[in-house]
């Protein structure tokens, strides 16, 4: 690698091509540019010129300079210049790489890997072997490979398999194994590169300086550390404060202030809250309060430092920090009668902030329990007493309430009472007393209840009385106004025995009814920690463990269970990484912080050790820039050449098609990423033959009834009616069309002839919608009913009328335009005569006066029906052909009425018009 000051070239052989530049320059200068092509008719005259000067014009100097710059940029780009390239590695032997992959390395893992790859690349460039030694102990099921001298390719493969481990590093062992392997294999000293995580060894371990001394035997050490602001943070457990647990966050160096944000995550991964904390300058520990409302506090699953990706930045929360569990001992009696039973009030009071459990003693004590509440238990049996005593000594709080049975069965040496009690109870403020019921005095300063406000309306009517003795006073937490203790508590081992001298239900006092009850209970529950039950021992198999990046996952094979004695002070090790152990309903969290303790930065390194900061590659590669510049210059050169050849004239006289296309291609290639290529949207054409046929000429339509005979009559009738209309009037009708309102489009037809047969099909909603739209759009439906309607038919008709929302119908009036629209008719016969014809009652201006319904039962289609020879299909019995003619006239009237609207209705008002015209 060639170095010139800050600039160095990775492939200096390419610079030899620069020697060819003068030759290139001369060549370009000598070569004339491409000629302009011009069409010239008097070419023959030009050919007659005797002397033609052949000295061509030269390439202009700026084009020459452009091309030279292009070639220079390409050559320099190939030579791969680097600005501020890293210095070479010292020594000439193999490169020994000590790689920290403990829990703290998950922070900047990608940069570490990049640094490792760069070191391997540099070693490869210098042709040196590589020895890779990770410092964290291997996972229990993975055999730690012995350090070996690797080629660059094998080293890169080995690098691929490295992952950060969630346990701390063990550098002394790593250094020892490396030095021993080097001595054994007699590798020459070379260079030592230590990619560290920035943390010093914990107290009591071999200090870093000693490690570096040992490494010096292998070569000049260089330490790569992360920058100070990227040193890892460690979160330590919240202290068990009842009201405001505080988490501690540790950092490695105390420089300056730093703010840290903690995220409190719930059970399903949902974020519950964030808390911000601050490191003071010079402080390596920050306390961050974990303020969670009580409803959310029970859902807390872990606390993590925002932005950190190590296993040490996550604190897993198990039941010990969750809601305290309060057990209400069930004695089988009816304690939870609403408003009467003591358990009811206790449950109500405890529920918001504690987990309330019910059951018998063994069930309750099987799981970790904070508080055990005994309401009016008189004489517990000895097994129970022993179990409770053990549990209390381990940190449980026993809360007893007085009651009838306790008052009756008081034993002097009850081990589960904080004070000795006098047998019997005391009634305060009864019928025969002067004073009223007892009121509470202010709470004692010394007890856990101090500071609670005493509401004035709490009164105690009955209580059990403590035997006066010397230690009653110090065990009293609450008194009545006359000094009698109401709540007493005694510390027993790790736990407490608390006695409330009155009942938990409102029998003896109204304390359970007051808000003070809730506060008192809360304080008492806050005393407790979730103590282990007696049957909590045994081994805890791993449930979920953290990996090096702080992600919870399945435990890798080889993870051991936590056993018995290791439960309380378990340490994180390769066999037991941090995570959850135990059963799914009784999880125990193993966290990293107790294992690591406080953090310390590497600090000053001894002299002779090179340092570098991780992640800052001062090296800058200029190759991409140079090649980009070369491409841009190339495009400019192309454009200029085309312009000089005259391709870019505004109106090219005779630009060959090729050149035009070339220019166009160039322009298109330049802007093609910007052109959105959308497929041409073909218009959706409704290729419906029938629609085209229906729309192009006026047609009458008849509704298919499903009975082929009726359909045939309808078709024939409308066809002959159409022929008659064509012959006699100016209307031009095409052949009639049979439609099905379920499927066909009805809007093309002016009227719809609907022969209602005996069998009426129910209409689907589509058909109903189509028919309603048809009528609303101005179409007319002509209903032709059968002669006789029985009940079912009538019901069917009613149904149709309801479904189609037919308007009220009236018989056709005498002066209605239907009788006058073409012919003057007095009755409207079909094959039958006499039945009334019904139309809609309309104003003149609604739908142009055309009724949307015409209904009758004169069987018009049969009267109109003719076959191909123009012979009528059905005889008309009473009236004969005259009636048929009248039926045709009615048909013509109907068609004209439907097609023309109220055009003829003026006839009705003729007299009015004449009156108005005449002054």
């Amino acid at each position, binding site marked *: 690698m060639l170095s010139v000051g800050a600039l160095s070239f990775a492939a200096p052989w390419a610079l030899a091509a620069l020697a060819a530049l003068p030759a290139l320059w001369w060549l370009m200068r000598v070569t004339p540019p491409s*000629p*302009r*092509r011009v069409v*010239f008719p008097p*070419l*023959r*005259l030009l*050919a007659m010129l005797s002397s033609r000067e052949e000295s*061509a*014009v030269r390439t202009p100097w700026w084009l020459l300079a452009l091309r030279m710059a292009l070639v220079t940029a390409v050559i320099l780009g190939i030579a791969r210049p680097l600005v501020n390239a890293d210095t070479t590695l010292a020594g000439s032997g193999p490169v020994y790489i000590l790689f920290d992959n403990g829990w703290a390395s998950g922070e900047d893992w990608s940069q570490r890997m990049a640094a490792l790859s760069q070191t391997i690349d540099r070693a490869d460039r210098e042709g040196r072997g590589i020895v890779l030694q990770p410092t964290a102990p291997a996972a229990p099921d993975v055999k730690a490979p012995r350090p070996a001298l690797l080629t660059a390719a094998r080293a890169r493969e080995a690098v691929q398999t490295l992952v950060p481990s969630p346990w701390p590093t063990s550098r002394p062992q790593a250094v020892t194994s490396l030095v021993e392997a080097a001595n054994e294999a007699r590798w020459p000293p070379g260079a030592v590169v230590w990619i560290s995580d920035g943390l010093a060894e914990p107290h009591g371990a071999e200090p870093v300086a000693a490690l570096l001394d040992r490494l010096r035997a292998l070569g000049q050490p260089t330490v790569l550390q992360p920058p100070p602001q990227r040193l890892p943070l460690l979160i330590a457990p919240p202290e068990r404060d009842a009201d405001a647990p505080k988490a501690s966050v540790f950092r490695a160096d105390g420089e300056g202030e730093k703010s840290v944000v903690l995220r409190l995550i719930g059970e399903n991964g949902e974020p519950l809250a964030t808390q911000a904390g601050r490191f003071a300058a010079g402080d390596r520990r920050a306390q961050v309060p974990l303020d969670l409302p009580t409803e959310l506090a029970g859902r807390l699953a872990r606390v993590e430092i925002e932005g950190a990706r190590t296993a040490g930045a996550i604190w897993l929360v198990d039941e010990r920090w969750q809601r305290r569990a309060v057990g209400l001992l069930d004695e089988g009696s009816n304690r939870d009668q609403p408003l009467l039973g003591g358990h009811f009030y206790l449950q109500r009071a405890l529920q918001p902030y504690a987990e309330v459990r019910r059951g018998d003693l063994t069930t309750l004590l099987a799981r970790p329990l904070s508080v055990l509440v005994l309401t009016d238990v008189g004489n517990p049996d000895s097994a129970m007493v022993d179990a409770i005593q053990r549990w209390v000594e381990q940190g449980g709080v026993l809360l007893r309430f007085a009651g009838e049975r306790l008052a009756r069965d008081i034993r002097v040496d009850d081990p589960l009472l904080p004070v000795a009690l006098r047998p019997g109870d005391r009634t305060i403020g009864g019928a025969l007393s002067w004073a009223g019921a007892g009121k509470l005095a202010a709470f004692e300063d010394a007890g856990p209840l101090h500071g609670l406000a005493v509401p004035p309306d709490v009164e105690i009517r009955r209580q059990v009385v403590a035997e006066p003795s010397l230690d009653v006073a110090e065990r009293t937490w609450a008194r009545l106004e006359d000094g009698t203790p109401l709540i007493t508590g005694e510390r027993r081992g790790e736990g407490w025995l608390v006695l409330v001298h009155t009942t938990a239900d409102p029998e003896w006092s109204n304390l359970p009814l007051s808000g003070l009850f809730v506060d008192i209970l809360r304080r008492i529950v806050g005393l407790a920690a979730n103590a282990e039950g007696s049957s909590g021992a045994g081994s805890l198999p791993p449930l979920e463990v953290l990996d090096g990046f702080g992600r919870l996952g399945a435990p890798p094979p080889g993870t051991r269970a936590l056993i018995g004695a290791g439960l309380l002070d378990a340490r994180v090790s390769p066999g037991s990484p941090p995570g959850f152990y135990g059963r799914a309903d009784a999880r125990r969290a193993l966290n990293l912080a107790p294992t690591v303790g406080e953090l310390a930065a590497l600090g000053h390194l001894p002299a002779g050790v090179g340092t570098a900061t991780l992640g800052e590659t001062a090296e800058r590669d200029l190759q991409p820039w140079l090649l980009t510049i070369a491409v841009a210059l190339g495009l400019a050169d192309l454009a200029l050449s085309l312009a000089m050849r005259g391709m870019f004239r505004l109106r090219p006289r005779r630009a060959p098609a090729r050149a035009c296309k070339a220019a166009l291609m160039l322009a298109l290639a330049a802007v093609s990423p910007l052109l959105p290529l959308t497929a041409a949207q073909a218009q959706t054409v409704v290729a419906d033959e029938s629609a085209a046929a229906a729309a192009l000429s006026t047609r009458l339509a008849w509704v298919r009834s499903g009975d082929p005979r009726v359909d045939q009559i309808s078709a024939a009738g409308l066809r002959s009616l159409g022929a008659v209309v064509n012959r006699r009037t100016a209307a031009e009708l095409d052949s009639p069309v049979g439609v099905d309102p379920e499927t066909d489009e009805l809007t093309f037809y002016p009227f719809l002839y609907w022969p209602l047969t005996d069998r009426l099909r129910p209409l689907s909603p589509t058909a109903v919608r189509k028919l309603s739209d048809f009528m609303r759009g101005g179409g007319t439906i002509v209903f032709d009913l059968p002669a006789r309607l029985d009940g079912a038919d009538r019901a069917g008709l009613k149904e149709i009328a309801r479904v189609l929302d037919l308007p009220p119908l009236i018989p056709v009036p005498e002066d209605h335009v239907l009788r006058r629209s073409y012919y003057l008719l007095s009755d409207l016969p079909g094959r039958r005569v006499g039945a009334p014809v019904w139309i809609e009652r309309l104003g003149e201006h609604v739908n142009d006066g055309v009724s949307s319904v015409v209904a009758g039962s004169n069987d018009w289609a049969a009267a109109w029906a003719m076959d191909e020879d123009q012979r009528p299909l059905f005889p008309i019995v009473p009236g004969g052909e005259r009636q048929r003619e009248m039926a045709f006239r009615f048909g013509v009237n109907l068609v004209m009425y439907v097609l023309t609207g109220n055009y003829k209705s003026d006839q009705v008002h003729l007299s009015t018009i004449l009156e108005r015209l005449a002054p």
Partner: protein
Amino acid sequence: MSRAGRSAKSPDDAGAGPLRRLSRAEALAATFPPLMVEAERVAATVSQGVHGRRRVGEGETFWQFRRYQPSDPSQRIDWRQSAKSDRVYVRETEWEAAQSVWLWRDASASMNWRGTSSLPSKLQRADLLLLALAALLVRGGEYVALLGSGQLPASGRAALQRLAIQLHRDGEAAAGPGLPAAQPLPRDGRMVMIGDFLSPLEDIRTTVAAFARCGVRGHLLQILDPAEENLPFSGRVLFEGAENDGELLFGRAETVRDAYRSVYAEHQQALRDLARGVGWTMRAHRTDHAPQTVLLALYLTLSRLAAG
């Protein structure tokens, strides 16, 4: 101006269609009152298109008295003149026949070219001049025909329109030859050849001589583009011929400019000498000059040709 001979567009011929061009040509001819006055005057002297042919023949003008030959019909004896002397004379009239003008323009690919886009192509200018001339001639009562169309000279508005349509059809067809095919023409006809005359001089000489031998009096009008005359190119230029006749590469075009101009002037001079040699006239017209002057000059030349 492609090799297929498609006509290029120019400012004064924005529309297609022969009749459109005809109307434009007529508009050109009609907007010059002096020209029209001149046309009228010339037409008047020419007396309705009937020109005396200075020989004995059918006509109205007296030509000569001739002694009576026994082969003459006796009705032709002019008794008044015979009474004045003792010989018998026959009156003879001058042969007056309508004069025909044959027009031709060069439709080859080299005509369909223009030097700059602001000027019309030579073909457009040639068409314009031809049609305007034909309009003037027809107004003056002459008989015009397009050479090579196979039609007899005719007069009147119909003839003009036919001429225009023929021109258009010729323009639509493939490029024609650079010189008209020789065809026998009646004596004393007149002829106008409009083109750029860039063909070899020998070919032009042959064609002109062939027509002159028929007795036709002609006029050559050379249309040239100012770029052809001046060679305004510089730098490295590859010249291509318009009719697929090769390419020439010049390293520095500006150095040959003077030499080229002199060659071009020689060519023009040779054309003039050629025309004068057979008794014809020749005129050159640049497309950047106005067509009106050359039209007037052409018309007057034709009438002079007719008169003398």
